């Protein structure tokens, strides 16, 4: 499964971080990839705390979960990816309007994806380099009975201490790629008009 592409800005930043990592010591590359695993563990722990807080109403729990999604996911980079090639043809104002709506949509997508994973176990299996500047943390999530086991790959980017998720691949299906092809179909029918997509996402959210 090919990891998700990322923006040119992220590539430059991560390129510098990667060079510094390599210069420090032979073990630095391993340390950098282990940081990604620690980030996944930390995010999972935070998700646990929210999902298991039964003292909160469901609505409030969902709101906290969405806030955690927005904190840990690189919404601007994902937003730019999912509307290519139309992004580069849109004006800065259109791009800004889209990004402000897309952040909420992204949070909803992942909240829907993971909210009913309550009671399940995440086990990190391996870590490997992904596309330039990204790390793929491979894991499984299994139900308490063990009846269902999902392979979940977390695509992590960003310097140590400021990692973000770029994509989550569940049983080989990339959330970012699926969203890109979903929006691509819509935009082709809308003559590439990014404002039309923004309006549709806004109407969906309401």
């Amino acid at each position: 499964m090919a990891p998700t592409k990322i923006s040119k800005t992220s590539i430059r930043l991560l390129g510098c971080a990667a060079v510094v990592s390599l210069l420090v010591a032979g073990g630095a590359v391993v340390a950098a990839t282990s940081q990604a695993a620690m980030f996944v563990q930390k995010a999972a722990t935070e998700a646990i705390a929210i999902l298991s807080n039964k003292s909160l109403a469901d609505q409030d729990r969902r709101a906290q979960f969405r806030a955690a999604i927005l904190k840990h996911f690189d919404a601007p980079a994902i937003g730019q990816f999912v509307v290519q090639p139309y992004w580069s043809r849109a004006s800065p104002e259109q791009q800004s309007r889209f990004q402000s709506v897309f952040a909420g949509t992204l949070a909803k997508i992942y909240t829907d994806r993971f909210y009913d994973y309550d009671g399940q176990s995440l086990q990190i299996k391996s870590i490997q380099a992904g596309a330039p500047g990204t790390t793929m943390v491979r894991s499984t999530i299994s139900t308490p009975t063990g009846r269902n086991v999902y392979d979940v790959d977390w695509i992590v980017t960003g310097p140590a201490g400021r990692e973000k998720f770029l994509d989550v691949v569940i049983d080989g299906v990339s959330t970012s790629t699926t969203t890109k092809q979903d929006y691509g179909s819509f935009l082709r029918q809308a003559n590439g008009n990014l404002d039309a997509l923004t309006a549709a996402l806004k109407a969906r959210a309401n």
Partner: protein
Amino acid sequence: MKLSSTPARVIAAVLPPLLALSACVTLPSDPAERAEVELINDPMEPMNREIYAFNTVVRHTLEPLRKSTIRGEPLAPIWLGVSNVLVNLREPLVFANDLAQGHDCAAGASLRRFMVNSTLGIGGIFDVAKSYGIDAHDNDVGRTLAIYGLPEGPYLMLPILGPADLRATAGIAAEYFADPVDIGLSRAGASAAGWSIAALDVTERNFEAAPDLEKLERTSLDGYAALRSAYRQSQTEDIKEDNCPEVLQTNSESSGARTTDIGK
């Protein structure tokens, strides 16, 4: 969404007239869009969308029945038994395809499952093999054709059966002639039983896929396009799987993996 081997008869009856009536997609003039559409390879998109709409109506209609079979509901234990029997009846075909693909370990797993569940599991009602760490896995002629290098061909949406491509559909047609269970039932003069199993099999696969399809619909603008994307990606991933259970692997990895329990 996996496809059953047995309803090949349904496809053979329905596909030719549908193909005759199909409208083809027009390629966009913009080069980037054109490249994307060619990559998606869905020339019969208008017809496929009609079938998707039909399948969605069927799924929504059966939703109350599906909900009565989930854990905690009255029909759940019965449905679990039925589902286990259906999975067990698929094992001979899974075994044959595992062998054809050179996945000896997976073939061994399928054979063990079939033998253990057919006997200790009382005709497959109980999934005893799972308690030994040998979970069920899926395999089909479509995947075998993929491993032998046949390209997937255009995307198709099949009535009731759901997403497919030309290669997978050819696989279903091949299974019509090669499914050991179907052959056995025909020779025993029990073709009607074959149709009943086929209907239950399709229902079971649709019930299994329904929650994911519902989530996909909720989180996408164009459910059809999202499903097409998810199907293509999962097919690519499935072809890479060797489906060898850990308990049967000769050199187990010491994972040292950390486990985090979500929501406990």
